């Protein structure tokens, strides 16, 4: 018997039993509500899934409630996007609740509050809603980046504000809160983008050249590392991390060969970006197994 067989850490059946049936079923449902946009992106050398969850919202499905947002950010402190990121007053509520007919409109007022505080404030309204905030690149601060909940019954609706952020696709309608029906039943999970602390890595990012991001308006794709670094320096932006594409896998590195080509850039942390670089240009990543409909023989036989 192959001795490796005997040191299998876990069987498929054991692995599946570690997650509850609800967790696994809900995850499938959440994945299936994301846009199937691969066809539009297949020509791109980048992986369609490497960024944090990217979900589009049909503009028609969002409520534009600009007035509500304007009143919700009237507190002191530094304003970044629609939320206040300065030190909150100790007694301040983390969320603001405004009743509108049969709905509660909820806006995040303190994006640095403890998740328990949000949960407690929702619970005061009888709502079982879990809210988390993740450090986001500047154009996504204050926006709702992820939500899930029951598929039947009254639904939570994102509240959008025009001009509070800019999407990679050029749109500027972004959710900044949620509208919860008073008779909402079940559990919901919401994730907002918040401003990153200095040095803190972003967990959700727009393209580095999107409006509001560090490299907006800069052209870098297809240029060499040696050409791009001075452009970054002129903006006081540092290339803090590189992903070197070799043999169809991206190798993380603190440095990159000066003559390699930049294929993409991500916001990384405040004043920092991550550059995707490739030895050749145009990049040959399209021919990698993961970027094809199915894995096929690659020229790299290691």
């Amino acid at each position, binding site marked *: 018997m192959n001795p490796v067989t005997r040191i299998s850490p*876990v069987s498929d059946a054991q692995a599946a039993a570690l997650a509850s049936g609800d967790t696994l079923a809900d995850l499938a449902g959440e994945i299936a509500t994301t846009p199937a946009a691969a066809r539009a992106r297949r020509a791109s050398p980048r992986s369609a899934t490497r960024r944090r969850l990217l979900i589009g919202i049909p503009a028609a499905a969002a409520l534009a409630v600009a007035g509500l947002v304007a009143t919700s950010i009237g507190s002191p402190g530094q304003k970044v996007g629609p939320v206040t990121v300065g030190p909150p007053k100790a007694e301040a509520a983390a969320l603001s609740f405004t009743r509108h007919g049969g709905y509660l409109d909820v806006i995040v007022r303190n994006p640095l509050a403890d998740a328990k505080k949000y949960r407690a404030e929702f619970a005061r309204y009888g709502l079982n809603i879990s809210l988390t905030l993740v450090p986001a690149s500047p154009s996504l601060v204050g926006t709702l980046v992820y939500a899930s909940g029951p598929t039947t019954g009254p639904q939570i609706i994102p509240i959008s504000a025009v001009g509070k952020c800019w999407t990679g696709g050029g749109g500027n309608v972004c959710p900044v809160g949620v509208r919860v029906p008073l008779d909402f039943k079940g559990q919901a999970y919401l994730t907002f983008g918040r401003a990153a602390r200095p040095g803190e890595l972003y967990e959700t990012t727009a393209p580095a050249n999107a409006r509001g991001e560090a490299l907006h308006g800069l052209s870098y794709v297809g240029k060499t590392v040696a050409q791009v670094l001075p452009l970054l320096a002129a903006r006081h932006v540092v290339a803090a991390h590189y992903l070197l594409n070799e043999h169809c896998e991206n190798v993380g590195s603190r440095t990159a060969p000066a003559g390699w080509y930049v294929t993409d850039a991500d916001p990384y942390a405040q004043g920092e970006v991550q550059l995707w670089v490739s030895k050749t240009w145009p990049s040959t990543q399209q021919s990698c197994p993961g970027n094809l409909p199915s894995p096929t023989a690659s020229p790299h036989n290691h």
Partner: protein
Amino acid sequence: MYPVSKGANVPAPPDPAPAERRRRFDELYRSHHREVLGYLLRRTPNTDDAADVFAETFLAAWRRLDDLPSDPEVRLWLYGTARRTLANYRRGERRRLALADRLRADLASRYQPPDFSGELAEVTAAFRHLPERDRELLSLVAWEGLDPGQIATVLGCTRNAARIRLHRARRRLADELARRRPQGDPPPARAFAPNGDIA
């Protein structure tokens, strides 16, 4: 469930997923989620990474559903995608997916990687001493039950290359096991029976 933003990188408002597409995805997920989760937990003790890569793998499958091979080859596609994504996570390209929050919590609270003792601890030590590439080849045979042709599909190499590399990996494991055996202890006739069609 309701769609929400993210602002970044959104090409166009998505069409509502046709019921037929959703049905196909549900079938794929139902048939293969155990295998993908098992594959990942056998590769990494980091349950957060396993949860995120699991979600990323099926997110990729959902997005490319119309291009995926049919059963049973789709299982190999899922392994290949999970393998590359996990490799990138290990190299620092790590993103925490909000949609994997609950799976991450479930796995973190319930999974304890086994701690082998005695002879199996020896095997584990020898196995861990091998290069990652060798470990993956041996694992795909021993844990996922793949043959060299299927391994070639997962790794994106030719069948012949998979056979040669597997043969070498087995030899290196046998050498490593022999090296760890106390002196005077006679080696077995074969470290282990070849599994598959190695020449």
